[in-house]
């Protein structure tokens, strides 16, 4: 559905994206997980045709490059920087973006109402955006991406700086979009989000895609073993194992255990193992 082939982009000496290839299947949520400066926003900008790659190509569906306006109409974007007019109301923002997509009056009316409900903003629809809370703006930012009902969505950190309540609402919304069969790129540096929402995850660092697969695959391939750590009368012990439950039972039988803990491998460990660093310092 969305195919990025060998994308490279540098800003002077900084290599923002380095030989990145990616193919999204129709209807999947693809998580692009990486720390600050990994190149997520740059990748999204190239995917939507905003930024010209130094080399490589972007293709959407079997239509072509997003340089063409008709191809861009298939994409909905929620930029990382809030892309809203503060002095327009929620409704007016959505109407504006819908009109620019060339929507008819009737479908615009329906879709604006739908998007406002989707973002849980129906009640505040006729207030100016500058009176919204941060979470409400984020939700409207997402609603503006879906107002023209595009099959492909590029969501760049759609939950950044958001309270748990709004975050929950956004998760629900994205799950709904996934159930409706949208193809979504979802960038984040939150492990939990990637684990909860994404069918597949790509791990991005310094512009390079280090690994790609389902969460289970990534953990199996790069997570390493589970770790059992225990405090005993003889001191602390740490055991790496493929069968943590059996190991715990064994430790408890043999020693005088004060406390015991088990860490299953997760994406954080995957990232640590791949880069030697934690995802967030």
């Amino acid at each position: 559905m969305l195919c990025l082939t060998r994308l490279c982009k540098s800003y002077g000496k900084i290599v923002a994206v380095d030989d990145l290839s990616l193919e999204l299947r129709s209807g999947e949520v693809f998580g692009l997980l990486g720390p600050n400066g990994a190149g997520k926003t740059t990748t999204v900008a190239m995917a939507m045709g905003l930024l010209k790659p130094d080399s490589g190509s972007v293709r959407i569906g079997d239509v072509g490059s997003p340089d063409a306006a008709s191809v861009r109409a298939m994409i909905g974007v929620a930029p990382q920087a809030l892309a809203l007019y503060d002095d327009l109301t929620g409704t007016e923002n959505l109407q504006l973006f819908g009109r620019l997509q060339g929507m008819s009056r009737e479908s615009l009316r329906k879709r604006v109402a739908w998007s406002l409900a989707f973002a849980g903003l129906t009640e505040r629809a006729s207030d100016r955006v500058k009176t919204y809370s941060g979470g409400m703006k984020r939700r409207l930012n997402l609603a503006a991406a879906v107002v023209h009902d595009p099959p492909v969505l590029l969501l760049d950190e759609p939950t950044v700086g958001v309270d748990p309540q709004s975050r929950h609402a956004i998760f629900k919304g994205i799950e709904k979009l996934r159930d409706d069969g949208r193809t979504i790129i979802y960038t984040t540096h939150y492990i939990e989000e990637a684990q909860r929402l994404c069918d597949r995850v790509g791990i991005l660092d310094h512009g390079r895609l280090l690994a790609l697969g389902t969460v289970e695959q990534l953990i199996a391939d790069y997570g390493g073993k589970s770790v059992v750590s225990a405090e005993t009368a003889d001191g602390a012990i740490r055991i790496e194992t493929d069968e943590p439950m059996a190991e715990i039972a064994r430790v408890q039988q043999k020693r005088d255990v004060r406390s015991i803990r088990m860490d299953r491998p997760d994406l954080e460990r995957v990232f640590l193992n791949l880069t030697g660093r934690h995802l967030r310092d």
Partner: protein
Amino acid sequence: MNRVAILALKDLKLLYRDKAGLFFTFGFPLVFSIFFGIIFAGIGEGSSKMRIVVVDEDHTDGSRAFVNLLAESEELDVEEADRATAADLVRRGKRVAYVALPKGFGEARERMPWGAVPRVETGIDPSRKAESGMLRGVLTKYGFEGMTAGYPDPAPMRRQVTAIRTELLNTTQEKTAASNDGATFLSNMTMFLDHLDTFLAALPSAPDGTRHGGLASDERASGGFAPIRIESVPIASERATPTNPYAVSFPQGIIWGVLGCAATFGLSLVTERTRGTMVRLRSAPITRVHILAGKAGACFTATVALTTALLAVAYFFFSVRPDSTFKLAIAVLSIAFCFVGIMMFLSVLGKTEQAAGGIGWAVLMGMAMIGGGMVPVFIMPKWLQNISDISPVRWSILVMEGGIWRGFTFGELLPWCGLLVGTGIVAFAAGVVVFRRVEGG
């Protein structure tokens, strides 16, 4: 709806919602126009003297005395020059008119009230009927005053009496001697002249300003006699100052609104970039051309609306009646065109709002300062007036005034309009080139 129009309407709506921005584009220029109109009106009252040039081609005591009379008058502000310079000053509108005293003026004056009436030539634009009439009145008045001033010194008069007497005798003797009546007239006349000479000889030679000699005051008022013959030479002139001070202050105030529009929309283009809305616009199925055209359309519309609104206020509340509405409309459209280009150029001068805003205002302020947006060009020192010709603000004020009160012909108006439009195109093109580089893709 056309997508450019959608974008332009969005920007106009945003301007309308931004009350501070709205004040600076519409309110401030209005306040400025009215405030300076009041001030100019005051300045006008202070120097109500008509500014003329006097050309003395006679170089006699008589002509000199008349020049001095005019120079000391309450009604006139006098400068002296040769005829060519004088005509040029009038043509360029620096002076309202010239008054030339041709050869023989002094002699004719001395012989007053006998002999040929002294002749002066005035050069003035025929359309300046009020000034022309006033100048005629003033010259006539000093024509009389010169005569009264001439009498207290009896010596020239006695010379005249003698001269007239000789002339009379020479020219009339043959003709009149033939008849009785003629002889009687001649002897009466010589007797009168003798008496007059005796009378003049008896006068004290020290001049006394209060005394009126020669003609009785009721005879002066009769209007049957003109002490001076005025011949008018028509000179088409650029008018230097209009009669209504608001005809100066409104174009000047409007310029601030135009600059405000250029700054507002230029900055809004930067804001779209920094605040991320540009990303969303670019993600829509429209091109960069649409985005820029939308911005330009909004700026153009706001500029024309603002200018029209202020000119309407000037028309209805301050009696600023344009000479030609059509020419004024051409002027306004050219100005809007120029400043849309400048807006585009300003929008790419800085990456951040602060940088673009700062540089933008510095550029606009510079243009306004040298271009007569702050103080009118005619008050400026000469060297600054010359510099001001490079400022689009100056051209803008000029073309507006050209349609309102300068009475520009199309030949005078269109080159300036062309300059405005050309500058607009160049600035716009430069802006687009940089914009494309900055925006990538």
